[in-house]
């Protein structure tokens, strides 16, 4: 009889543990991270690193990740389908906080949940304005912008000039880009930036790879510096609909341009550029995650946290390219590059 009682109490004990664990996990506030691109894409990978720096310390929240894979596949059908899948995932997960990274995540999914009474949205990696998404008048949205860090680019150009034997106090600059939506949206902030004393000659959008090459060769003779951001959407030729491999595009550009080429994206030096200065993806991830944490801890709406601009940037250097062009930078650039493991010697 006593043993029957012990067996019964043991089962009650185990059932109670199970029930408590299930109830506890179901009651945990959910955070969903919606990435526009795939996890292997350098920018996304680094934003995830920034997110993890905060999220890995969380214990009372449940975190799910969803990748829309729109960098590798960007045809209209795929975009439409990935938007539907993402919105379905959000509705099924019903997160308390949705962190949406990059413009496509906003336009294809997150904007449909503006003013949702049970969900707050935090955007990151938005290049232009948030007005197209309705965020400016929403009561449940905040986030961090991804505006190109142009002041450090300007300082780098002037630093390169200062190290030349005969320096130019007013070097000229042009911005060459492909036709991808994120770059087109962010172009105006680069065009309207105060580049003085650098003479900014404007931006040129290349239609395809042959057009890109023609522009590089022409502008290489006309200006001192060319800045590039992305070149992943350059069709190989008129009839060929596939995109040219980005590493080949960048390697060709660095080799054939008479003007010095400076990248303003994370992967430019990996692809072959001499130097790049880009928005810190780590800051994007960390700030977004900290905003989410504030919302959850204080139980406030996202609109109580002001939207903010990005401040941090990363520098990457390819030493061999610098030496090939007989150029130098102040030692602190190399120190920064090495400290963040972005200094390539070959």
């Amino acid at each position, binding site marked *: 009889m*006593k*043993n029957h*009682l*012990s*067996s019964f*109490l043991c089962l*009650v004990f185990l059932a109670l543990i199970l029930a408590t664990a299930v109830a506890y*996990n179901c009651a945990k506030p959910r955070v969903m991270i919606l990435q526009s691109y795939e996890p292997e894409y350098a920018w996304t990978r680094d934003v995830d690193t920034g997110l993890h720096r905060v999220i890995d310390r969380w*214990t009372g929240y449940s975190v799910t990740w969803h990748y829309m894979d729109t960098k590798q596949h960007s045809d209209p059908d795929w975009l439409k389908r990935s938007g539907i899948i993402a919105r379905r995932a959000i509705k099924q997960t019903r997160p308390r906080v949705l962190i949406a990274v990059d413009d496509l995540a906003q336009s294809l999914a997150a904007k449909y949940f503006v003013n949702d009474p049970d969900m707050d949205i935090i955007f990151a990696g938005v290049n232009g304005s948030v007005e197209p998404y309705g965020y400016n008048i929403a009561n449940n949205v905040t986030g961090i912008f991804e505006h190109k860090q142009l002041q450090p680019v300007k300082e780098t150009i002037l630093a390169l000039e200062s190290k030349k034997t005969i320096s130019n106090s007013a070097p000229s600059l042009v911005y060459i880009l492909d036709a991808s939506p994120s770059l087109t949206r962010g172009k105006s902030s680069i065009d309207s930036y105060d580049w003085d004393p650098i003479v900014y000659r404007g931006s040129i959008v290349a239609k395809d790879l042959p057009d890109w090459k023609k522009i590089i060769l022409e502008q290489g003779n006309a200006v001192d510096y060319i800045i590039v951001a992305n070149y992943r959407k350059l069709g190989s030729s008129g009839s060929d609909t596939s995109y040219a491999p980005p590493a080949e595009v960048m390697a060709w550009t660095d080799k054939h341009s008479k003007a010095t080429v400076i990248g303003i994206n994370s992967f430019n030096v990996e692809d072959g550029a001499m130097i790049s200065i880009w928005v810190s993806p780590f800051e994007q991830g960390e700030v977004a995650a900290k905003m989410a944490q504030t919302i959850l801890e204080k139980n406030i709406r996202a609109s109580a946290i002001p939207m903010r601009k990005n401040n941090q940037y990363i520098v990457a250097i390819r030493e061999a390219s610098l030496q090939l062009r007989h150029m130098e930078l102040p030692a602190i650039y190399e120190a920064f590059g090495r400290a963040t493991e972005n200094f390539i010697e070959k």
Partner: protein
Amino acid sequence: MATQTSNYRPLVADKPLVWLMAIIVPFALFFYLSHLDFARDTAIFLAIVSLTLISWMFSLTADFIPALLALLLLLLFGLVPSRVALSGFSSDGFLIAFSVMGLGAVISTSGLARRYTLWLLKTIPANTFAYQAAVFFTGFLLNPVVPTITARAVITAPILNNMVDHLDPPAREKSSTLLYLSGLDGINLLSPIFLTAALGIVTAPLHKISIPLVTFTIICFLLVLGALDRKTFIEKIDWAFFFLLAAMIGFMASMNYMGLDKLLVAQFDGFKDFMRLDFEKFVLVLTLVTLVVRMFIPLNSAILILVKLGAIYASIPFWRNIGVL
């Protein structure tokens, strides 16, 4: 029928009051600590600790099970990442303990123990004192190479039994107790001097391979050479102890991860003056604490807990300043 009844063993411990305590106390403690404004994670952790202690104190299950259950609860409630909770299974201590226990199993099953006993009986004088010394020093020699008392007992016991079996009945009756006590002293008394009693410290500078890998290499090679068959491998190695060891290492790592070790040290900050002013009395108090802990907690668990607590306090510079460490 009578035989079947006498072989009956209940599935769960026949202690309904203890089961009731195991149900009520953790929840009560959690709500009480929450009422005192303890952080939720800390309250959950301490509730898990209370459940583990109840299980050990009243022997609700085998000693390794509460430790495993504690790990499970840490993971189910998301208090620490799995890489922290399960770190014991990939720790150096776990690898060393497994390898050396395997070695102990090889020694005891290979006939080596019996050959050693026969050699001893042939070599040493045939009197009780000589036999006692032989058994004592056999256990003593195992201290630097075999990390746990269980493993040393596994190796020494066959030697001791063989020796006792070779005595004639009157001598056996007179000396067996003394011999067993000598064996117990040999495997027990000198183990603190060798701390973890890990193998290979002397040879490490020669081959530059870490100690855990050295021990793991030895046991793997012995297994490849067929030193242990599958049945012996399963039966002769104390697997329950391994799971207990890994679970306790993971549990302590979880405590560190949550910052509770610092909290614990801060609670006993007042001991500093006591230790500085009267170290002899402090040692007596420590001995008393150890004895009390041992009365309630199984041996292996008590060793692991007290060693870890000692390590936490050892990290305080104060210990080094007063010359204790």
